[in-house]
């Protein structure tokens, strides 16, 4: 009676997590199937603020036709969207808007930063413009160009598909929401300063702290 089977003693603490069973044949086959399905039916949430949106529209229209990538359904509701495409510069006034749209999108979700301004602030290195949307939301693919041609955006979309096909459900951090923390930012302030640093022949920028 006093004997306790050591193998069953801590059974209540045993949690079968995905990471504990991975990687094995089942998860890799399941990954292949889910990633194949996800990568080929990305529903884009267009966040078009400037001239990049014109190129985005050209990409969606018949000549370039992103329907070929399973993106024919433009999702104008963030609740039914998979990939946020920020096409154009993002002023600080729109920062809470894109942040809320991103928070409203359900997992799994990805984002594409289209063009120089969305990625870095571009020529708008001034008081009113976010210096790269990666200071506001996490970004998966940056598409360079001013604006990028539709071929450039399609290459970005294909890169995102490639990235999705490399994901695994064994990564338990992959689908964790990166929310705005108590500091009011989702990155440390020093990181935001670093990402927003002036470049080229620009002059001094006020730093945190």
């Amino acid at each position, binding site marked *: 009676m006093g004997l306790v089977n050591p193998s069953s003693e801590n059974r209540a603490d045993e949690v079968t997590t995905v990471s504990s069973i991975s990687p094995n044949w089942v998860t890799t086959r399941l990954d292949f199937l889910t990633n194949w399905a996800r990568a080929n039916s990305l529903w884009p949430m267009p966040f078009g603020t400037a001239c990049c949106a014109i190129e985005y529209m050209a990409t969606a229209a018949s000549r370039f036709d992103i329907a070929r990538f399973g993106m024919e359904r433009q999702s104008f509701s963030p609740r039914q969207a998979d990939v946020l495409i920020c096409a154009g510069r993002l002023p600080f006034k729109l920062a809470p808007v894109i942040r809320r749209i991103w928070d409203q999108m359900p997992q799994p979700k990805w984002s594409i930063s289209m063009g120089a301004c969305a990625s870095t602030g571009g020529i708008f290195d001034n*008081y009113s413009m976010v210096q790269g949307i990666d200071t506001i939301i996490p970004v998966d693919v940056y598409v360079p160009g001013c604006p990028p041609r539709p071929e450039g955006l399609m290459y970005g979309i294909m890169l995102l598909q490639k990235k999705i096909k490399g994901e695994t459900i064994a990564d338990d951090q992959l689908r964790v929401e990166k929310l705005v923390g108590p500091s009011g930012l989702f990155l440390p302030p020093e990181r935001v300063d670093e990402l927003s640093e002036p470049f080229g022949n620009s002059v001094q920028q006020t730093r945190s702290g």
Partner: protein
Amino acid sequence: MTPTLPMLSPSVPALRSEFSTAIERHLVSSGQTVVVVNRDRSHDVLAWLKDSPGQEFNYLTDVTAVDYRDPERPLEVVYQLRSLGRKADLRVKVALDKRQPLEVRSVYDLWRGADWLEREVYDMFGVTFVGHPDLRRILMWETYAEGYPLRKDFPLRGHFSRAEQTRQALAANPEAHYSLEEMSIAETYGELPKAVRERLAKGERGFLK
């Protein structure tokens, strides 16, 4: 063909005889007449230009302001007037001494189109338009705390660090600063979910306080 000589607008002699000392000076620049008017009489002069027969400047093309690099020079508020019937233009300027409060009478009661134009000048230059019914920021968000961006003493990238700018922008809660009419939900407000109503009521200018 001989180049046409700069033409002085016939409004200037009429203004001089009507207002004498309130008309500080006038000049013709690139064929366009500019009249500089005393600040205290500006509303009288503009009302006279709008309503008196033979003037009838019934269309306010633009209200803007100019801050010169020389700190001794006054800040100028510029009214660009147009008479649609007479097909004539006139530019009226009001010089504001920077050592005194930047205040001028609003012309909202003369031209309703001055509403947003004066709000923009207030937002960018900090000029107070006395008598404006709804003088608040229009381009920057309402809690914007860095000052007036188009003043010459305003640094291009603003006063704060990028991290602080990003933090303040994300905390802006834009819905709280619009009236129910502006959001076109005045009639359905009662049917909104409780959480949405609370979010609308929150914020510095929360209209439901």
